[in-house]
């Protein structure tokens, strides 16, 4: 009784449906445009950074052969970890040599732990 001031219910629902379809289309349209622009951007910035990327990787790989100081630090860390795990003091543990193993499971566990802590 006088509830509908300025509309016919069926027309209003039709209009709402039209807005829904239109809205979704605009959202998709804009994001599709952005997608193509990113792809284009990747194409045209791919040639030049090829040299750059190579430079970056060499810069990153050079420090790989650990300098003396870092390996001392690493030995200190390993000593502390072994001592903590064995429940003795660090002075009673002597690291004579160490070698990196391809421990896939440990890497994976470490990665998962870092991810879980970050997010």
């Amino acid at each position, binding site marked *: 009784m*006088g*509830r*509908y*001031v*300025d*509309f016919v*219910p069926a027309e*209003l*629902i039709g*209009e*709402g*449906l039209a*807005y*829904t379809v*239109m*809205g*979704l289309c*605009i*959202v*998709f*349209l*804009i*994001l*599709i*445009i*952005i*997608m*193509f*622009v*990113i*792809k284009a*951007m*990747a194409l045209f*910035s791919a040639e*030049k*950074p090829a040299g*750059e*990327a190579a430079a970056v990787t060499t810069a990153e790989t050079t420090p790989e052969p650990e300098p003396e100081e870092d390996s001392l630090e690493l030995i200190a860390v390993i000593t502390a970890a072994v001592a903590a795990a064995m429940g003795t003091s660090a002075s009673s543990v002597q690291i004579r040599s160490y070698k990196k193993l391809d421990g896939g499971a440990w890497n*994976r566990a470490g*990665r*998962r732990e870092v*991810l879980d802590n970050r*997010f």
Partner: protein
Amino acid sequence: MLNNLLEGFGAFFAKTGVAEIFGGFFAENGYKTLIMLAIACVLLYLAIVKKYEPLLLLPIAFGMLLANLPLGEVMHPEYFIDPAYLIDGHDLDMNLIFHKGGLLDLLYLGVKLGIYPPLIFLGIGCMTDFGPLISNPRSILLGAAAQLGVFITFIGAILLGVFGIGGFGADGTAETIFKEAASIGIIGGADGPTAIYVTKTLAPGLLSAIAIAAYSYMALIPVIQPPIMKALTTKQERQIVMEQLRPVTQKEKILFPIIVTLVVVLIVPDAAPLVGMLMLGNLIKESGVADRLCKTAQNELMNIVTIFLGVTVGATAKAETFLTAKTILIIVLGLVAFSVSTAGGLIFGKIMCKVTGGKVNPLIGSAGVSAVPMAARMSQKVGQEENPANFLLMHAMGPNVAGVIGSAVAAGVFLALFA
């Protein structure tokens, strides 16, 4: 002497909030005030003990507590929504707000004038890495698909308005029905600032209910999403391992915010404040030349704005507007919006999986809702349950950040249509 003293205490007591509540307990709305205070305390409990989005829920709950204590006069939501206080029934009476407004009225201007949500987007931009999206551009489509809930809920809320359920469409005009429906639908974007930005313009009376629904569901993502994700995908699909993402150059990362701003703002100018600030923040970060600004925007500025936004949005929740059937329906519709958005992303993920011949794990689709990084983390978690060696997190971050852009665009569309 003693009589005077007693009289003095009596007069003082009559002016306290305690007298106000109990004096009008049954005659007026005293009991409603008590209910509001109880709700505020429950929200405080959820924020402090359960840690549901405490950074926002805590200020929201305390704002609610503060605004509902009688005679405190820190907040007058009616100055912003009641036509009796508005000039010509729609413009803010700044003179009244500046002279009679309480502390929270003045801070609320930052919401009402649309200042806080874009500033929060600035901080989010400084914290967001669009790298995963740039290296896998297809994943942006999932961010669009996960806006499905926004528009489906929009239709649902229109139906409520047309049939006059729960007090929707009470004034019988199409305009109000559309505006309220758009504000409720945008909860499905899973983006608090965007929901607040749309609602403060289109349906300010629903602001507190919508903000509380939006932030509660963001906190409940780990409960809401996994069952939907498992129901809509097969075991094989969940086990798909995706190819490693290619590294992205800094040049691409710098160009990205500029290009997105151009594309979005040229087509949907109403999204400019949100998308513009998001991309400015991201450009500050990726350019690497304004580190100090980046730190301020993502820490101090964002924290300050978060406090102001939370406490004032909470303060708009007064008994008259909050204790209604509408609030309950908004909470229900919000859940529908969230769930349908999650489903939309997953279904599109399945389509992409088929089209690419099984290269896309559909689980990353649910990350298209823009709750960063919770939604992406859910993709990672559910994926890892099936295949412990699978790392979907970075793949899911692509749709996740695309979802932020997607919901801001959806907000812009609504504002363009109904504001």
